[in-house]
């Protein structure tokens, strides 16, 4: 049931297949398969997973930078997966903005950083008098005087990331897609950016789709979470439930493997990774079957569907 007044963005059976190689040695890589999730108003939803699980591909499809092979993306009930007209695209981008992983690549090193801010203000129909740029910078804790006339190489990663967020806020979006926003920012500066997301949700009514592999910050900042593994969402629900009481064996292993910043809580058990990554991707059936401690025969041949168990969605035959 889609409650289109509460929901902002929703995906249905989203799929992306890449063709790898050429000529006679082509093979298909299913990067994203049957992904179904939604982000509501005033919430922070995390899409979490290890590198290579498909989460960045999902975000590119949401923004329209990549066309889905199958499936749909709806924004406030409207199909936005294949917008062709510039006016429609711009209307969508006004509502849905994004920031990226590498703050040093986000801006052209040969252009002044404030030019992007003024461009955004101009292109979305606001005049200089509205002072949108100054306001947006204030929202991220920066003053226009610190930013005006300077080039990207004069700032630190954390500052650039804030400026990037400021630029995204100028259009007064309802949804901010943040793709690994703090992984390249120093550990000591991360929390200030992550705290900013909380503030955006609480005071400015901007929802955040937080894409990351760092479960500690995901736990700290999100309301709901979806865990991705090799292209599928394998567990999804309230963050407290999913991360504190994981049901899928992969989520359990993931949680176990997060290093605690506490020398008294070191890992005691050993793990062993024997399989090469590509072998896992090409599996028929559940992609985790090669490493799962609870694997059954069924798992190797059949991909489990989305099942419900204890207040969350789990893709695992254990919960049939």
């Amino acid at each position, binding site marked *: 049931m889609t409650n289109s007044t509460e929901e902002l963005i929703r995906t249905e059976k989203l799929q992306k297949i890449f063709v790898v190689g050429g000529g006679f040695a082509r093979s298909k890589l299913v990067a994203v398969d049957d992904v179904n999730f939604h982000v509501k108003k005033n919430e922070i939803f995390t899409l979490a997973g290890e590198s290579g699980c498909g989460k960045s591909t999902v975000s590119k499809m949401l923004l329209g930078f990549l066309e889905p092979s199958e499936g749909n993306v709806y924004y406030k009930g409207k199909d936005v997966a294949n917008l062709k007209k510039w006016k429609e695209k711009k209307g969508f981008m006004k509502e849905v903005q*994004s920031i*990226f992983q590498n703050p040093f690549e986000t801006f*052209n*090193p040969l*252009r002044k950083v404030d030019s992007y801010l003024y*461009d955004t203000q101009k*292109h979305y129909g606001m005049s200089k008098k509205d002072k949108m740029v100054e306001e947006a910078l204030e929202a991220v804790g920066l003053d226009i005087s610190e930013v005006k006339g*300077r*080039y990207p190489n004069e700032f630190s990663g954390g500052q650039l990331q804030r400026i990037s967020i400021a630029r995204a806020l100028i259009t007064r979006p309802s949804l901010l897609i943040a793709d690994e926003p703090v992984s390249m920012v120093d550990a000591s500066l991360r929390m200030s950016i992550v705290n900013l997301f909380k503030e955006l949700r609480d005071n400015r009514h901007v929802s955040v789709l937080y894409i990351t592999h760092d479960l500690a910050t995901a736990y700290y900042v999100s309301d709901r979470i979806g865990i991705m593994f090799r292209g599928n969402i394998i567990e999804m629900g309230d963050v407290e439930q999913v991360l504190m009481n994981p049901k899928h064996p992969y989520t359990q292993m993931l949680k176990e493997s997060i290093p605690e910043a506490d020398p008294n809580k070191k890992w005691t058990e050993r793990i062993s990774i024997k399989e090469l990554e590509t072998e896992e991707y090409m599996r028929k059936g559940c992609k985790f079957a090669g490493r799962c401690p609870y694997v059954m025969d069924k798992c190797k041949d059949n991909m489990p569907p989305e099942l419900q168990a204890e207040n969350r969605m789990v893709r695992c035959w254990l919960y049939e």
Partner: protein
Amino acid sequence: MLEAFKELMKDGRFKFAFIVICVLAFMSILSFFSPYDPLRWNVVPRDRPPSWPHIFGTTSQGQDLFWQSTFAIRNSLTIALIASGISRVIAIIVGLVSGYKGGTVDTVLMSINDSFVVMPLLPILILIASVIRENLNMVTLGIILSLFGWAWDARVIRSQILSLREREFTYTAILSGTKTFNLVVKEYFPFIIPIIFATLINNMIWATGMEVTLAILGLSNTEIPTIGTMIHWAVNYQSILLGYWWWILTPVIISVFLFVALYLLSTSLSEYLDPRTRIQRIGKAKE
């Protein structure tokens, strides 16, 4: 602008190149004040070695070498500038469109491009030149040369665009609401400008070389004085054999200076304009 110039002058190569080109430019301007008509023969005593008032000597056709050179430089430079200028425009348009659009447009444009690249240039030029020899004035020659000079560089520009398209700031610009054309101009041009300059100058060297080649082979309009035609006539009249060294040496030395200066200009400018060194210079004043 002025600051950039001052910075460049610190580079020895640029300084030398700049001085030489200034001298050559000055000589081209002098051609407008020439007391002799370059197309007429026997206006001065023949075969005189360098002495006053004929400081470069005279030819067997009775022409003053110094004033001939002024015309030669002017015409050669004109041909080179026309050729490389037009070919830049074509290369930029093809490279930008091909690189950014991709898909079918890219495939079609690159197929055309590659056909131009593999064409055997010299035989075709010889063919064209021998057919329309009489009507081959400078502008025509410049245009013909430009049609052959764009293909290689279009590919270079295209690959630069291809890599720029995947960089994150492209997405930032799109999200900022920038439309395609403005995006390409504002975001990518600063990266392409060094390539354009470097290839412009290289193209000038190539065009001049082509002109000289055609002239020596006697295929261009040998009445119009250019560096190439000067060499042509000097060879034709057996100047070396007869010991009139000033006749052959003048255009050769001029062309050597021209080529070396253009080359040094190209390398020092592209080093200066290279985005990587530019980034280091940016914001330095603020520290």
